[in-house]
């Protein structure tokens, strides 16, 4: 009996592009799936621009990234007490091509609803040398709700420490040095207005186009960028942005190898977009495996993250396996 052809093959045969990879970020956050709009600042329509390889724009490049780790370290009744570690670092890569730490900061937080704690527990917590984040009453009540709230506070704390380190570093950048930020540039006025700062966004929860422009942006071929545009609809600082495809997406996913670049909202950014993109293409090597996001994660950013994780509290790392001694069987 002849096996029936699978429908997935049938659609490829009909002209669909084969895909076989679903990065975490492709699911996005539900609240950000609605397009927020964009204003083109380069050309009249969203166009594709081939990107030749280009050298780095300066002899030294600084890379900024941050991490967050948190765990529930206790319950008082049903009120969770969360311990969080957030950290950010800038690693500067000089002419010897080796990144070295230029700046870093870390915070340890205790996140809970203080009013919900029993007096002894609260005294013990307040007497400890730790920064306490007190959750609001409407954020707690149910343990699950409290944990979601704690998660959000950890996110904000990490963003804050990243912003602090990033702004410090931006102020110290040499005249030919650049700063590459993992994530949004527009969250900081200093960074958003800096002439030599770039944001590299790997996750695409927010979309700025729809229809034909969306298809053009998300099916961008490798080694191409889109026209520059100004994202609309969010409350951050104005920046210019463009999509850049680092790796071919055929056989993977629409978002595979796709990054969005943010630069200051200035005509010079448009003028430099192709050259800067060509440099970022060169940053594809070395690949940042074994990180699952290696298709969009620049190795120097991965390096900063590795550095921060190596310095994070060991007891906040998830156990990779049994800590029991191995047996002979």
């Amino acid at each position, binding site marked *: 009996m002849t096996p029936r052809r699978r429908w997935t093959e049938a659609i490829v045969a009909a002209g669909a592009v084969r895909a076989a990879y679903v990065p975490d970020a492709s699911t996005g956050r539900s609240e950000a799936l609605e397009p927020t709009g964009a204003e083109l600042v380069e050309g009249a329509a969203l166009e594709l621009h081939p990107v030749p390889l280009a050298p780095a724009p300066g002899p030294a490049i600084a890379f900024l990234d941050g991490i967050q780790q948190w765990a529930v370290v206790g319950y008082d009744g049903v009120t969770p007490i969360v311990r969080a570690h957030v950290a950010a670092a800038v690693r500067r*890569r000089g002419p010897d091509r080796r990144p070295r730490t230029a700046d870093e900061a870390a915070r340890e937080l205790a996140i809970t609803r203080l009013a919900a704690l029993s007096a002894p527990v609260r005294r013990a917590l307040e007497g400890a040398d730790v920064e306490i984040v007190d959750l609001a009453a409407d954020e707690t009540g149910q343990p699950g709700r409290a944990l979601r709230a704690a998660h959000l506070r950890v996110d904000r704390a990490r963003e804050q420490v990243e912003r602090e380190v990033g702004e410090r570093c931006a102020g110290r950048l040499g005249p030919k040095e650049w700063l590459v930020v993992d994530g949004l540039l527009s969250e900081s006025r200093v960074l958003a207005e800096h002439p030599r700062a770039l944001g590299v966004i790997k996750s695409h929860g927010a979309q700025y186009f729809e229809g034909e422009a969306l298809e053009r942006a998300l099916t961008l071929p490798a080694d191409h960028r889109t026209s520059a545009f100004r994202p609309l609809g969010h409350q951050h600082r104005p920046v210019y942005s463009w999509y850049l495809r680092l790796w071919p997406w055929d056989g993977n996913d629409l978002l595979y190898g796709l990054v969005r670049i943010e630069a200051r909202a200035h005509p010079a950014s448009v003028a430099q977009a192709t050259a800067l993109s060509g440099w970022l293409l060169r940053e*594809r*090597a*070395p690949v940042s495996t074994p990180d699952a996001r290696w298709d969009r994660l620049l*190795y120097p950013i991965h390096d900063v993250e590795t550095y921060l994780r190596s310095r994070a509290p060991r007891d906040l790392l998830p156990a990779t396996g049994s800590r029991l001694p191995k047996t002979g069987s």
Partner: protein
Amino acid sequence: MIDKSRPTPIGRVVATELKPATPHQFHFWTANETPIGIGAIVRVEASEGGALSVGRVVYGVVTDGFAYSDLATPLHDVVGAEGDPARAAEAPTVRQEIRLWTAAVLRQIPEEPLQPVPLGQVHVAGDADVAQALRMDAYVGGAQPRAIPIGLYTSGGLEAPVYLDADFLLGPEAAHLNISGVSGLATKTSAVEFLLASIFRHFPSHKGRIAAVCFNVKGPDLCFLDRPGELDAEDRRRYARLDVEPRPFDRVRYFAPFKADGVNLNTLRTHPDLAGDVDPLVWGLQEVLDFAEVLLNRDDIDAKADAFIDFLADRVLNKDFDDGFGRQHRVQNFADLDALFRAIFDGLEATGRSDMWRTHHIATIRKVRNRLANISTRCKGLVTDDGLSNDLPWGEFQDRTVYVVDLANVDPLGQDLVFARVVSKLREHLERRDLGVDAVVVFVDELNKYAPADGPETYVKKMLLDISERGRYLGLVLFGAEQFRSQVHRRIVGNAGTLVYGRMDMDELATPGYQVLSPATKIKLATLPIGELMVRHPHFTQPIFVRFPRPAPLRGRDGVERFPPAADLPFEEAVVRQLLRLDRRIRPNQVKDVIADRRAEDVRGALAAVRRARPEDVLAYFRKALGTRVAPTAPRPRQVVPPLNPISEEPY
């Protein structure tokens, strides 16, 4: 000089479940640009951890090294470079990579309780650290230091002297040294020359006097120990660092047998400027008979032959002896002995008696005659027919003197004989404490030839085993060298307290004797530069790499170029040279007149008599020994001892 100030740490001990730190081994990482390598000595200081760890200091030697990056699989490098190896090198960022080292523990302080190495900071070892790590502090200082420098431990531009313990190198606690390595690159002979110089400089006064006997068994290796060689500034600096004088040996005496003509010395040290200070090594029947067992091969070893040789030595040699057929004999040399043998054979044949003579079977007598005649023929020049010998100065050995016995061109049988006799005499005299020195280093190259791991149990091998196992009590110390240690009898190697390795052959390193070495150490051994050695010593718990300066004496092949050997002299000229060596006032023509028309045997006999007597008036004594001038006569056949059947296959 190693900087004694506390340097910044160069690494940190790491331990994982898969690579834990143990009491005998630990791992540490360093910066990529670290100066340390395989063989480097490091110090670990526990600055944190439990109460028992704080203050603990651990010394280790690096035995292996690893480098790896965060690359998950080689395929990812290909992907990053898009298949172009040239692009891989152009990546804007260099991958994170690690230098991870494995070190074997040399010493822990305190030694008890013995614990896993703490996860502390790693420092490069300084002078004092090296002394502590190698337990040299027990014998370097103190009221009676016993330290013998063997070389400089070097690592990352730092260096520290490494000392051996004289009690463990030269006895009585342990003794003997074995050095192995491939020919030409391992610098075995150079290492021994330097070590002898170091011993002569640092041998503790409370241990008495010491000398060395070196057997030169190949080429001109040891023929110029008293002549200065080339040393550069770096060599001189190393000599100064090790407190050894960068000069050749002050006192060297050379001994070499004659060639077959009995007057020209069988050595490469025959340049006119040097030949005068080589003493002939000549033995007669007495000396040979004492070690006749050397001449017997495995098939020969039986009680009957032994008994007959003992009979000759005890009852016949140098005694008036009746052969039982009516003839009196006084056997003093090979010719006399052969006359006795002929008388016995003739007597037995004439009387028609049985095949027995004084309880000895005629076949046994023939066999012994054959062997003795064989040595007289094959070692002509070493063994003399006339009975007058010239030997090493037994009983008059001088302190800090090297005695070189040049056997390079002597028949292997003769080499065995010389080796056996010299070492046995050394042992005899050391046992009686009347050698003149308290300890003797015997240097034997090509040990795998004299004491092979396989092969027959020869007298020489048995004797070497005896020295190895009991020599340390007597002060008889064996310094053996060979190309392949695995091919030397394991009890001889095993009894060497100190083992030294030059550059080694990889095949040799694959043999079981090297299983304790890490692969990296083996690679280092296989690629050791000239002048670097690996040393194992009872105080060192791990092998240590050291550098030593070039020996101050002239190297053999340089010596041959600077002092090319002279061609063999005509008989008359050779005799003149022999006598001139004893008395510079002699005029050659006088000697030539005296020996004109005289038989060569007579001249050689007279020369031997002069050498033995060393008279004030050499020429007069020589003339007297030669006897009055006689009219020339028709030459008669020389009475030598013809072998009955030199290549006989008879099973005796």
